[in-house]
């Protein structure tokens, strides 16, 4: 009898312990799920250029990830917060958050180095600090194909500026593009703009460095199509301008003028005086030739 009592008591203890241990596991996934929803909403807000709203949502997600002690989520949301501060021209805050994220990456999640590198490269590239871009890209290895392509694009463009060898980057971008295209078709790209960016910089390097205008046309046209699909007028405008330049070099004036005029319309709507002036200059040069 005593034996059975002991066995029964042990069984009860095991059951109680199993029940208790499953409790926190039930709470955490709900918090993490909520955090992921916040991240999704924040990315949507970022896509709409509502950076202040996106910042708030990323901060909420960060709070939830912290509560659930989800380190990858914390890093992801932390870097996203830094990115929003960068977009909102609050450099100091952006730097603070990058520093925080760097510490977590260093100790907990080396695989997130790619995400951090992209943000740093974007910041350096926007300041035309090409040497920094090349340095960061050299040190970064990431298995994430989207991050890799984005880094390669900026690296290739910077190497071109610094008159360095860009061909390995270009080859890798060209190899990644079909994979990204497939994911894009299945709507599985986390950031679909990476595909148009890849096409754009492939075209850019081909025409600028290798003077392959006809080949570059194909890439710019694809970049324009992707940007149209993802509703990115800035990308469409840039691709149209590049298409116009290619057509101009190839002597197809009618197409070139048409591309420039469409690009002019877009940049006028986007209120980008620099691009408007540049494109107007190109259109005027046509008029002078005709005269």
């Amino acid at each position, binding site marked *: 009898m005593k034996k059975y009592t002991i066995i029964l008591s042990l069984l009860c203890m095991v059951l109680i312990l199993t029940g208790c241990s499953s409790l926190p596991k039930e709470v955490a996934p709900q918090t993490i799920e909520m955090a992921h929803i916040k991240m999704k909403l924040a990315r949507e807000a970022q896509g709409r*250029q509502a950076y202040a709203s996106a910042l708030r949502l990323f901060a909420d997600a960060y709070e939830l990830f912290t509560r659930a002690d989800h380190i990858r989520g914390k890093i992801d949301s932390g870097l996203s917060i830094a990115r929003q501060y960068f977009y909102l021209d609050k450099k100091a805050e952006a730097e603070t958050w990058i520093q925080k994220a760097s510490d977590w990456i260093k100790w907990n999640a080396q695989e997130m180095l790619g995400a951090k590198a992209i943000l740093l490269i*974007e910041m350096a*590239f926007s300041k035309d600090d090409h040497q920094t871009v090349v340095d960061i890209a050299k040190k970064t290895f990431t298995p994430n194909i989207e991050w890799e392509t984005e880094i390669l694009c900026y690296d290739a463009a910077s190497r071109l500026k610094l008159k360095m060898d860009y061909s390995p980057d270009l080859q890798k971008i060209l190899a990644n593009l079909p994979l990204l295209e497939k994911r894009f078709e299945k709507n599985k790209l986390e950031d679909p703009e990476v595909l148009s960016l890849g096409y754009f910089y492939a075209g850019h390097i081909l025409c600028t460095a290798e003077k392959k205008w006809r080949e570059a046309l194909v890439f710019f046209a694809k970049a324009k199509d992707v940007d149209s699909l993802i509703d*990115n*007028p800035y*990308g469409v405008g840039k691709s149209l*301008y590049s298409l116009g*330049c290619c057509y101009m070099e190839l002597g197809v004036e009618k197409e070139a003028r048409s591309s420039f005029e469409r690009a002019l319309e877009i940049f006028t*709507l986007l209120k980008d005086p620099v691009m408007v002036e540049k494109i107007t200059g190109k259109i005027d040069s046509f008029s002078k030739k005709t005269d």
Partner: protein
Amino acid sequence: MNFKFKHTEKIVGTFVFIALVILITGLVLIALSKKIFVETYAYRTKLIDAGGLSVSTTLNFKGYEIGRVKSFSLDQNNNIDVELGIYEKYRDKIVVGSVIYRQVNPITGNMSLIFLYPNRFSVKLADVGINSLALREGSYIPSLDMPDGQKLLEDKIVEKSGDVISIIFEDTRDFMSNIRQEFQLKKDSVKTFFEKIDGFSQSLFENKEVFDHLNRLLSPGDGPIFTMLNQYTEVANRLKTSADQLNQMLDNYKNPEGLMNKMLMVRQDQLGLAVENLNKDLAALHEILAALKEQSPLMARVLDRTEKTLQSLNNHPLLRGGIKKEGSNANTSKKKRVDINE
């Protein structure tokens, strides 16, 4: 080895007997627990929905089971006619002003009926010479589903009580239903409602600056609007004085008879004073207009943003459309793209 039961009949008989005892005891206990042998008094009530209602549904009062549903049927007005059996012990609790409250458990979907005893009577019993207001057997007890029951609740003759969670759920449901009716929302638009609320709070947050400006402008004493209003009042008073003087002057000239005499009677200094005052007032007015002009960019900005806020408030609730989206004036992407030959 041969094995044989010696007392087979006794053993089987004992088992059968035990089984029968258990069965009968069980039946008796069930009958007692279901109060089958308790005498009941029939009362009626009406409900709007029979979802979760059964003949075993109990009527509870302060946690005590005071009765049970005997039968229910759909009447001509599509209401549920319910016959209740009230136990003898609690019969005196069924008084005028009592109400039946139908409560549905949001999780199990089971219905329970709660008996609500009146907090007070609509008349003082002693005043009307009645010792008891107990309802007769077969009387109708209003339910909160029906207007007469609702009236008793509104008049605070009865108060809702029962399962707290169920009450919260029901109150929430009523609240949402009222919101839907109020704002003519569709059933599936609760999500949209909260999204709109979220958007509204965002717009309020973004427009905090506007309210700050408004606060600053409207702050009594040092706010520019108040300063301007004070100046304006001062000038208006002075203008009024000048206008009175002019009126007085014009009165003098109203009657043409003896005009020349009156003209000759006008004192030169009076006219001069009026013109001088007018000149001063115009100068002050000019200053105010200049100040207004200085403030106008700030005010225009504040008003512009206020208009947007009010527009969203107008559209609320449910922020139909929210604040109008302006044409995109920023680059949609922050990923820099280098131009050819740049």
